[in-house]
């Protein structure tokens, strides 16, 4: 089991080391994920219903779907 794990880690380490074009692509992927999750998601894309209980969510959506009483 440990041998398999070691082989798997070795497989990925060697794979990443041997990359040429892949390095550029990984840089793009990491930068993009940082912008998506570290900037956009955190500061610009809050979920308006987050942190509410299911009943509160239902109440909020019901209010939004119905005209003022």
């Amino acid at each position, binding site marked *: 089991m440990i041998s398999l794990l070691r082989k798997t880690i070795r497989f990925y380490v060697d794979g990443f080391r041997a990359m040429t*074009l892949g390095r550029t692509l990984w840089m793009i*992927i990491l930068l*993009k994920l940082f912008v998506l999750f570290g900037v*956009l998601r955190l500061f610009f894309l809050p979920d308006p219903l*987050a942190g509410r209980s299911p009943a509160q969510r*239902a109440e909020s*959506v019901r209010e939004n*779907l119905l005209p003022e*009483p």
Partner: protein
Amino acid sequence: MSSDYLQTVDWSRAQFAMTAVYHWLFVPLTLGLSVLIAIMETRYVRTGDAFWRRTTRFWMRLFGINFAIGIATGIILEFEFGTNWSNYSHFVGDIFGAPLAIEGIMAFFMESTFIAVMFFGWDRVSKRFHLAATWLTALGANLSAVWILVANSWMQYPVGCTFDLATVRNEMSSFREVACSPVAVNKIFHTVSSSFTLAALFVVGVSAWYLLRRREQRMARQSIALASLFGAVCALLTAVTGHRSGAIIARVQPMKLAAMEGLYRGGEGLPLTVVGLLRPAGGEENGDPFLFRIGVPRLLSFMSFNDPNAYVPGIDELIEGDSVRGMLPVAEKIARGRRVIDSLARYREALRTGDEAAKAGIEALFDPATAEGREFLREYYAYFGYGYLESPRDVVPDVPLLFYSFRVMVGAGMLFLLLLAVVWLCNRCGRLAGQRWLLRTAVWVVPLAWIASQAGWAVAEVGRQPWVVQDLMPVTVAASKIPSSSVSVTFFLFLALFTVLLAAEIGIMLRQISIGPEPEN
């Protein structure tokens, strides 16, 4: 509704459309190229010919660029569901969430696991294991697409669900009905086959460029032989499933079909317009909506109902209704939708006042277990979304956009089928290298493949308007109550991010094509 809320709706729609358009630039190439690579590698494993290994590795490199730059672009769409479309996201509940969750798991576990073996595993794992990883990557990518398409199909044809009055959510009552609805099944085949065609055109176009430059002759010819045949078969399948789409839309979204055709007045044995120019005023004046048109007699009736003499309703009949043909007027649907809204309002009031008798009475209306409930759900709740419309004409989508998008999609699709068949034939006869006009055409047609693919989505999504969920929820109530300024800011942030990614994709891709495959040993 406040003017700022309506601006939020408009900005949210623009943002979603822009994000989806950019996302879909990457996806179809991933879907199709993964399969073509797997076929090439299968040839390598079966023949042991190092040529196929080199060819596979070259196309795999281009696949890797597209995959790396396109990955996670779809996540923004899921962020937007939560932020900009929270009413919609809550209303559709687990029906939309379940396919997206399955997609996320499949995408993560299959693609992410096997793509590493695909790129790092050459000479590290056995040939057959590597080939299995390549096929599983292709399968994973396409299965991911399947679940997204299932979710989208439910928005076009909401089946297999019941409405829960207490939670204000649609709950899935039949996974089979959702996943195997005729709209979903046909959409999956149509979208996937058209994506395979796009990837085939990409391979043929790049290979044609090598032939024009007199470079990599063997790789280019063999790639063309494979991709042109694959693409022609897929283009034919796209046409067949497209015809089936027409028949399904005629039944479940007749307004979309009428708008696609610019058909204001329906009738029997109607022609399909092949080429036409719409009048700016449309057909709302009860005149001829076309400045000119060339049509194929009776083809629209045949396409819609497999009967050249069948009746196809136009926009006006769909609005006015026809009691003989069992079509309700939109005004009546609006009245029924408003009764559902009124029931929801009375339910809210009963919750506030603690009036248990009133609450139980309204709950009985929405209970599918009783005959009264089933009738109310069928006769009234089915038109819930209409209750938010101000005028019957609000149900008409953007006719010119649909009309022209449909013709771009179909016209380009026919061109692709013809081009791929001719390229395959010329290549088979050994005369392709001499047909430089054909090679140039193959190169220039590559961007058209993306335009046609986007036009197809415009038909599907613009044709669904004004609904976000057909008949149940219009876009005007689906958006979150957030300031429009926040959505407009993120619109431009996404636009900048995606434009940079697209520029990176094109730049890196062109450079790698220019470098070509790795040297032979």
